[in-house]
């Protein structure tokens, strides 16, 4: 199980290769990649937009490890990986990678959805959007809380 919080981009194919290499028990690998959306509907071109992701070093890793441990306790995972970037990003850039590997697909699919739902409500990251001279902190969505809540109980 691997957690990385980094400024640099990641290579999804290389990560998948590394994660499943040498483990013939893995029969299913599910990958979720989160990208920066174009966040203005107006004039400013994508090239003028940027997003800055701030996080709480130390707590971020601690919370991601706790989320991963919870997933491992619920599903029979052979391997799992979370990479989350921080710093300045542009529309189209990769933000987050969640990979889950198991003998069968159901555990891999469910654990992956669980991890990204919980990550969105627990991992201490904050998005600041900047476009055309303006800036705004992205507000948390109640739909994300609802998505995480369906895994309770």
């Amino acid at each position: 199980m691997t957690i990385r919080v980094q400024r640099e981009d990641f290579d999804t194919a290389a990560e998948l290769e590394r994660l499943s290499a040498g483990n013939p028990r893995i029969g299913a690998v599910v990958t979720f990649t989160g990208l920066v959306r174009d966040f203005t509907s107006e004039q400013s071109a994508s090239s003028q937009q940027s997003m800055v992701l701030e996080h709480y070093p130390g707590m971020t890793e601690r919370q991601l490890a706790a989320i991963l441990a919870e997933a491992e306790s619920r599903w029979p995972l052979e391997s799992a990986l979370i990479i989350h970037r921080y710093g300045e990003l542009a529309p189209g850039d990769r933000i987050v990678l969640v990979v889950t590997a198991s003998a069968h697909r159901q555990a891999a699919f469910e654990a992956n959805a669980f991890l990204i739902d919980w990550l969105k409500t627990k991992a201490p990251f904050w998005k600041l959007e900047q476009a055309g001279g303006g800036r705004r902190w992205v507000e948390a969505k109640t739909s994300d809380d609802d998505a995480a809540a369906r895994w309770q109980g």
Partner: protein
Amino acid sequence: MRVLYFALLRERVGLAEETVSPPAEIRTVGDLVHWLRQKSPQHDYALADPAMVRIAVNQDYARTDHAIGPDDEIAFFPPVTGG
């Protein structure tokens, strides 16, 4: 104790971090919030709305009734928006 602020709260307080020595009767996070809000109008503004403030003590989520001591790291930040 160390107090950290992140994102919008950091901008509102005007500080990323400060070391504070509250009096002995400040025993919980809720006490600390009350005490910090009297430090400056910026602190008061940043911490005024409980719906906008999440709390961590030593890097774990905590509620306002959580006990605190001089060696603790206490962080205040808005609801998270990662992923």
